[in-house]
Every structure is written in C-alpha cells, then in structure tokens.
C-alpha cells in the first residue's frame, strides 16, 4: 500500500494586495503631509488642555518670539502674493516680481517694510542666516496692523492665530491683541501644545 504523502508547500501567503494597500497609504500620507518649513526662530509654545485643533489652511499666524519680535506668516500662495503687492504699494516700496516670489515662498517674515526690499533680494535660502528685526507693532509705527488688514482683504475667511513663546513678555502679547481688537478681530486662537498630564477637563467631576 502506498502511503498518501501530504502535499508539501511553503506556508506563504500572497502578500501583493497587502503591499499594494500599504504603498497606496504611504503615497497618500506622503502627499498630504505638510512639512514644516524652517522657522526663523525657535518657539516653545505653552501647554494647555484645549482639544481644539488649528484649521489646516486659511490661517494667519502671528509669532511672538521670546525677545518680543513679531513674525508674520500666512498660508496660501495667491493670498501671500496679493498681500505683499498691496503692502509694497502702501509703503512705496518697489518690489520686482522675483522679490515678490521670494516673499511667497518664505517662511515667517519679520522685517519692517523699509528693509523689505533688501531682505527679499537675498533669496529664500539666505533668510536662515539673517536675524530679522521683527515687524513694528507699537503705537507709533504699527505695520502689523496693515499686514493684518491686507491679509484679511486677500483672504476674507482668514483665521488669526497667535503663536507665542513661553518667555514672551505680556506687554508685547497685549499690544498684538490690542491691535487685533482695534481691527475688530475679536475671535482668535492661541497656539499651544497638549498638556502632558493625562487629566482632561471633561473627566473632571463638577
């Protein structure tokens, strides 16, 4: 009697569909991922229990560095182009198309309009090495106000967010908030990071 031999085969599964799916997802996440551009200044944001996430787009971020310098950053290439065009006109600064493109591609900018031309002329790459003086935002010379006005014209659904450093002094923050209040921007966001402790406000008993 011949023994029936079990058919021997390696227990391998066809992994192709799985790989297909994995690569599809990789591609999706790679394309949707937005890489944070090199910020000209390091900001350590304070922690909060807030669960509200910042919208993806249509955000004007006013960064307040620990030394009180105010940075301007807005997303949307078209809107940025319109803002710099309007600002150049208002402050009588002649900017070439190339310099405007540099502005569009730049990360946060913190240069008074008087120095804007020479700043933009150096190109995007060179910005990293320059210590930007900050956008004037005091009562005597409030360029920040015009930046916000022009940004809101360029994008009427704009959301304003303040990204302050832990060590930024309150009077500076207050002056930025006062500027917003003067412009009737009465709802804005403060960018924070998540509090490390697990306690959530919802879980609290009342």
């Amino acid at each position, binding site marked *: 009697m011949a023994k029936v031999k079990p058919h021997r085969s390696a227990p*391998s599964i066809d*992994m*192709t569909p*799985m*790989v297909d799916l*994995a*690569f599809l*997802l*990789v591609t999706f*996440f*790679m394309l*949707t*991922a*937005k890489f*944070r551009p090199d910020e000209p200044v390091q900001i350590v*944001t*304070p*922690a*909060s*229990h*807030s*669960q*509200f*996430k*910042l919208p*993806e787009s249509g955000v004007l971020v006013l960064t*307040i560095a620990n030394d009180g310098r105010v940075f301007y950053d807005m997303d949307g290439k078209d809107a940025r182009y319109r803002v710099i065009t309007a600002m150049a006109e208002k402050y009588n600064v002649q900017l070439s198309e190339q310099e405007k493109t540099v502005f569009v591609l730049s990360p946060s900018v913190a240069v008074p309009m008087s120095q804007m031309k020479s700043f933009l002329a150096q190109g995007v790459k060179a910005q990293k090495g320059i210590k930007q003086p900050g956008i004037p935002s005091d009562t005597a010379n409030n360029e920040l106000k015009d930046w916000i006005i022009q940004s809101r014209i360029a994008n009427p659904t704009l959301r304003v*967010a303040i*990204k*302050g*450093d*832990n*060590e*930024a*002094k*309150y*009077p500076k*923050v*207050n002056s930025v*908030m006062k500027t*917003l*209040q*003067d412009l*009737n921007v*009465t*709802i*804005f*966001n*403060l*960018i*924070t*990071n*998540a*509090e490390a402790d697990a306690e959530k*406000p919802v879980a*609290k008993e*009342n």
Partner: protein
Amino acid sequence: MAEISQGGGGDKGGKVRSKKQSTRIDMTPMVDLAFLLLTFFVLTTSLNKPQTMEIRIPDKDDPKNQQKPIEINEERAITLLLSGENKLYWYPKINPETLQETDYGVDGIRKILEENEAKINAKFGGKEQSMFVFIKPMDDSNYKNMVDILDEMKVVDIKKYALMEPTGQDKNIINQYASSMGATTPTE
C-alpha cells in the same frame, strides 16, 4: 514520468535541464519598509497639527459694550495678579489688602478657584450669579502665565473672566508684599 537522471554522465548525450525556479521574490523586507514609512507618516501628520485655544475679546465698536460697564457684586469677584518670575498672587473680592501668594499648580490656583467658586455659588446660587475672575497680568509676566491662567479657567469651567490692566494699587500691594517677604522688589 519514470525518468531517471543519470548522474555523472552529463556529456554522454543526456540533456542538461535547467532547474525550474520559482519566480516569487521574498517581499517581507519591502513590506516592512512600506509599513515603517506608513507608520511614520501617520504619526507625523496627526501630531503636526497644533492645539489651539480660542479666545474672544470684546468688540470695541459693538454699541452694547459702549454703554456703562457691567456692575458686579464685589462679593462675587476674585482677582488674580500675574507677576514676574512666574509668581502668582490673588485676592478675593476687590480688596487688595488680603493679597496672598500662590502658584500655577493643581494644588495652588486650581484649588483656590474651586473653593471660591463653591463658596460663591453657595451664596448666590450659581449660573448667572457665578464667580467673576479678574485676570491682571503685570508687565513683567510672560505669555505662558497668561495661557496657563486662561487654561485654568477652562479646566475649572469658569465662564466669566476678564483680562485687564493692573491698577497702581495692585502694583503697590505686590511691591509691599514682596518687600515684606524679604525679596527684592520687582522692577517696573
């Protein structure tokens, strides 16, 4: 079927058969890599979005705000003074003489807010008559202090609070307090 390959006599007319190899490749390393990348992108995209805290400030042009200021029973008020070097002072009602120092921790300001809120709610019945917090950041306080206190308002669930300028009296009382504690007076 019953073919027997003769070993050793390869050049004696026997056909050389190429061994049939499977065309399958081991995909495991590729899958590993794919999932590694997948995990990386999933994690970075979700962590990238920063948290925000929404705040509303009063509208200056709103005619409602241009009328006379809201009157609040002083019994319901509590004042927090945010000072430099992460110091936090508070006093109940509107009586700066009862100034006390506390800190930003759970056992510090949160306890005080909760205790006072309970006291005021017991006396006035809560809801519309709840505690009103005056937040007064001094010039030497920093942004973190302000965010910490605003966050505390959210955690303790205090609906009524206002950011305002400290008065001269507040500044004096802090200076007095600091000098009475033997510390150097904060520079203005």
